[in-house]
């Protein structure tokens, strides 16, 4: 079966992104397809490469990046939400005149239409939030 996942909260503050990660991993392990993981609202903050969590804690961002690499996951960060919250890739950096980018490996920035498409294409949309 084909799943799409929506993540509404950032790393560490809310368990939402942990639950979304565990759900996605379990779905992949059961042989399901993940059409897309869409990061919305503060969820876009999962896509920053600048985190350095304590050694004895999980690294939420790296965990997503590794899952994406292993399973060729499509992880999309909403551009409008990202602009409000400061998540920037090379293109956004140029367009908005910023002097740095902070997007983590495996994440790409795109429009809200990607969420709608994810819901159209998948058999199930599963939302994780606050």
């Amino acid at each position: 079966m084909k799943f799409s996942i929506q993540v509404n909260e950032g790393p560490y503050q809310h368990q939402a992104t942990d639950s979304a990660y565990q759900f996605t991993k379990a779905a992949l392990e059961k042989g399901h397809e993940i059409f897309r993981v869409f990061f919305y609202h503060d969820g876009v903050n999962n896509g920053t490469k600048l985190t350095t969590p304590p050694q004895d804690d999980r690294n939420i961002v790296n965990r997503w990046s590794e899952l994406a690499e292993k399973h060729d996951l499509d992880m999309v960060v909403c551009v409008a939400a990202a602009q409000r919250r400061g998540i920037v890739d090379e293109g956004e950096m140029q367009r908005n005149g910023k002097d740095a980018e902070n997007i983590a490996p495996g994440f790409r920035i795109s429009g809200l239409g990607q969420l709608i498409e994810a819901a159209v294409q998948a058999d199930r949309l599963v939302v994780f939030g606050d």
Partner: protein
Amino acid sequence: MSEDIKKFMYVNRRAPHGTIYAWESLEVVLIGAAFDQDVSVAFFDDGVYQLLKNQDTSDIETKNFSPTYAALGDYDVTKLYVEQESLEERGLTIDDLMDLKWEDEDEDWAEKDSIRVVSRAELSSVLDQQDVIFSF
């Protein structure tokens, strides 16, 4: 792209302004309108506050997105379900809400109400009939 039309429901259970969910939810509804799905929007629990008249955010200096609800009709988003029990619990009636309309091209652009006040039982049944339920 699949050619199927799905029944999309956007659920709004949060008050506006205190958090951004209501506004960013509305942004999804507007973008989604381009996708030719069968769209409904539900407002219940604190979501009914989103539709209150006379919202003016000038003194909190945040973006006032409440006039945007009036544009939903132009985007062919015409089914706005508002739960009666949620209104009553909050001391509100339909008269406290914005008067949202859409124009029916099949009836010579007759103006019709977008808001449908429904009971909790009716709303539950509407939710049950959807293909996809968005929550923010």
